[in-house]
């Protein structure tokens, strides 16, 4: 036990005694005036009661202070021996252990932000070389993170998260991604208001856009190893941007949240170019609620509008050559999302089920240069593409979940008044089915198996097999719905 313990014990015992010794001053003066009958007796009594009350208040305060001190010291003195419960009826505070020296960490580190670290790794086995991965009919930037990634054993992204209140009006958070190729990127870094009130909150910085259901969620909360093809093909896997986000929650018992975002448009489907205005505008609307104790749901509609200039895209032309095209223009992506969760009596600990689905529809409208550097054929360009996925996750016993996802894309028919060689007239619909099984020994660790049959490329079947672990250490993160 700590050296200062006996001293503080003595101090603590003495404190209430001092409080008792304090003379109840109003009471002492009252008896002298009590000669003139019942009325003054009554007044005297009242005063005495008042005095008693002040004395008790003083005692209570002293005890509260002891309680505070005891709480602070609790870290150093693990749960004092249970007090004799026989005298429990007298006063609850009688069982308060004597305060020990405060061990609550003060000093410079006391205000350190909450830190969490996500560790993740993969084993990937594919029947086709991921180097040649493409989604037929969808032109994507060369650096887009699509497909099954690299084969064999690999480290996945390590994510460092920091968050804390800044002052009574702001909180801040950052997610730093450490990539296996030793690069570092800022995934999210934003400040957010906490005191605007009336349902408003404003975010500024870099963040994942609030469009759809999956987009704002970090990779370690996904139910499958990879994001759906529709997200890969139309949002570059996950759309994040630098900008502002304003959310407003309606003052109704029915959940209704509206959001508006403006940003640089720094990533696909936008491009980062020097402009004063916004390169991205997004609007979101979500609603949801409960049906009985066992069911809950959320559904929404979002619109993402992004500008691109000279966006270099990898494509396959009508005769099967790999070419680079350049797109300049506007992209509008509509997203309809819905999720429904079931847990018996709302208790998800043993078993639960989650069904989620999203539909994305992208319209790209502008100008295209076909085969940059060679043919250089330019003309006006417009394409409407869409895709959806539907997935169900079932926890059949504590810690164990199984999931099935099915998805399909429609590449649309591009309208291009440049070279006729630019686009073929394929009617192929990329599609994919995935099956996963994961085991979560605790809420901080997960091991997952996933098998997927991927038909992203016309005439190619890629059997993909993944083993993944995801672990989180440090601060206990709170996850959104």
């Amino acid at each position: 036990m700590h050296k200062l313990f006996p001293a503080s014990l003595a101090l603590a015992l003495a404190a209430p005694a001092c409080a008792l010794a304090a003379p109840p001053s109003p009471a002492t003066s009252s008896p002298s005036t009590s000669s003139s009958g019942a009325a003054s007796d009554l007044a005297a009594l009242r005063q005495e009661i008042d005095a008693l009350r002040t004395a008790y208040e003083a005692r209570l305060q002293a005890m509260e202070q002891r309680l505070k001190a005891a709480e602070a010291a609790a870290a150093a003195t693990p749960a004092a021996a249970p007090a004799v419960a026989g005298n429990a009826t007298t006063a609850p505070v009688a069982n308060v252990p004597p305060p020990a020296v405060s061990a609550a960490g003060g000093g410079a580190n006391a205000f350190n932000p909450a830190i969490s670290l996500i560790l993740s790794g993969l084993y990937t086995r594919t029947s086709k070389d991921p180097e040649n991965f493409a989604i037929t009919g969808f032109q994507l930037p060369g650096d887009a993170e699509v497909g099954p990634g690299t084969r064999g054993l690999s480290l996945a992204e390590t994510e460092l998260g920091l968050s804390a209140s800044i002052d009574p009006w702001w909180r801040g958070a950052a997610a730093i991604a450490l990539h296996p190729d030793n690069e570092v990127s800022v995934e999210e870094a934003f400040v957010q208001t906490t005191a605007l009130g009336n349902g408003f909150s404003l975010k500024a910085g870099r963040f994942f856009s609030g469009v759809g259901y999956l987009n704002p969620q970090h990779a370690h909360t996904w139910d499958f190893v990879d994001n759906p093809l529709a997200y890969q093909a139309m949002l570059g896997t996950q759309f994040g941007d630098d900008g502002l986000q304003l959310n407003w929650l309606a003052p109704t018992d029915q959940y209704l949240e509206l959001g508006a975002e403006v940003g640089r448009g720094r990533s696909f489907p936008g491009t980062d170019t020097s402009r004063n205005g916004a390169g991205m505008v997004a609007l979101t609307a979500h609603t949801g609620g409960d049906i009985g104790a066992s069911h809950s749901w959320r559904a929404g509609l979002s619109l993402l509008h992004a500008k691109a200039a000279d966006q270099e895209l990898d494509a396959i032309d009508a005769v099967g050559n790999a070419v680079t095209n350049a797109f300049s223009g506007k992209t509008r992506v509509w997203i309809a999302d819905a999720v429904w969760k079931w847990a018996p009596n709302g208790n998800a600990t043993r078993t639960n089920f989650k069904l989620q689905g999203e539909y994305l529809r992208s319209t790209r409208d502008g100008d295209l240069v076909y085969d940059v550097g060679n043919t250089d054929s330019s003309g006006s360009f417009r394409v409407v593409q869409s895709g959806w996925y539907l997935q169900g996750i079932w926890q059949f016993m504590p810690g164990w979940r199984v999931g099935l996802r099915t998805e399909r894309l429609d590449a649309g028919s591009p309208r291009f008044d440049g070279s006729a060689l630019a686009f073929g007239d394929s009617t192929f619909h990329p599609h994919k089915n995935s099956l996963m099984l994961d085991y979560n020994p605790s809420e901080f660790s997960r091991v997952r198996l996933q098998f997927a049959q991927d038909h992203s490329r016309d005439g190619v079947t890629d059997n993909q097999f993944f083993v993944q672990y995801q672990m989180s250490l440090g601060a206990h993160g709170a996850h959104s719905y």
Partner: protein
Amino acid sequence: MMNRKTFFALLAAPLVLLANPADAALRVFACEPEWGALAEELGGNLVEVWVATTALQDPHQIQAKPSLIARARNADLVVCTGAELEIGWLPVLLQQSGNAKVQAGQPGNFAAADYVRKLDVPGQLDRAQGDVHAAGNPHIQTDPRNIAQVATALGTRLQQVDPAHAADYAKRQADFAQRWQQAMTRWNTQAAPLRGAPVVSQHKAFTYLYDWLGLKEVAVLEPKPGVEPTASHLQGVLSTLKGTPVRMVIHAAYQDSRPSDWLTTNAGVPAVKLPFTVGGTDGAKDLFGLFDDTVARLLAAGGKR
């Protein structure tokens, strides 16, 4: 196909609903049923209480559901346990609520565990020990003495956030304190035969109850807090019980009774389901019923030596 106009119309539609009738009642968002019941006792018709969870749900494992976010947005006072019990969901609720009144540190944010002495405070913080809570065991509501202390603090807080009715709250609080004191005397007398009784618990959820009634926890079915009982650990518990017979095995209403039932079958120890919070059993209709029923169930299973 929806065009831009329809989208904006959709955005504007809820504005009509903005004309929310300014209810006179103070809106209280209670994380757990026991605090909802306490707010009802102390606020009566001055408060409108909404409880986020039920007694059949595990308070550690709640999701930040849309319905919860909507209610947190409109709350004047959020009453929760604290001590990290709601760490997996409450921070998200508060962030998304856009409600300045109920953020941490504001008078509209009340954490009950701040006002009681906490037990099971870990000397060393390491998740190898399971889902431990740095601030101590958060299941404080199983000891009526804690309820008394929280009632005092919550009564004061109600007066602070709704000063117009301060006198009413003070009156209700004094009335509750008196009735509670009487009830505690009754429970203490009733539960006297339980003193010193050795018991097994399924989860470390009843530390405060044992502290109050003088029950002795001989073993816990969960190998570590929040970790499901394993066959080998259960066998270990079984061999412990050979040397130290216990009177009962205790689990909360929200928990799966199978591990407790297993012990009943294999060791002949009666399993006791306790309400754990208001609404956990038919008898636990309010805070008084919670302890009436708890004491009655304990006595029925292990009152005799």
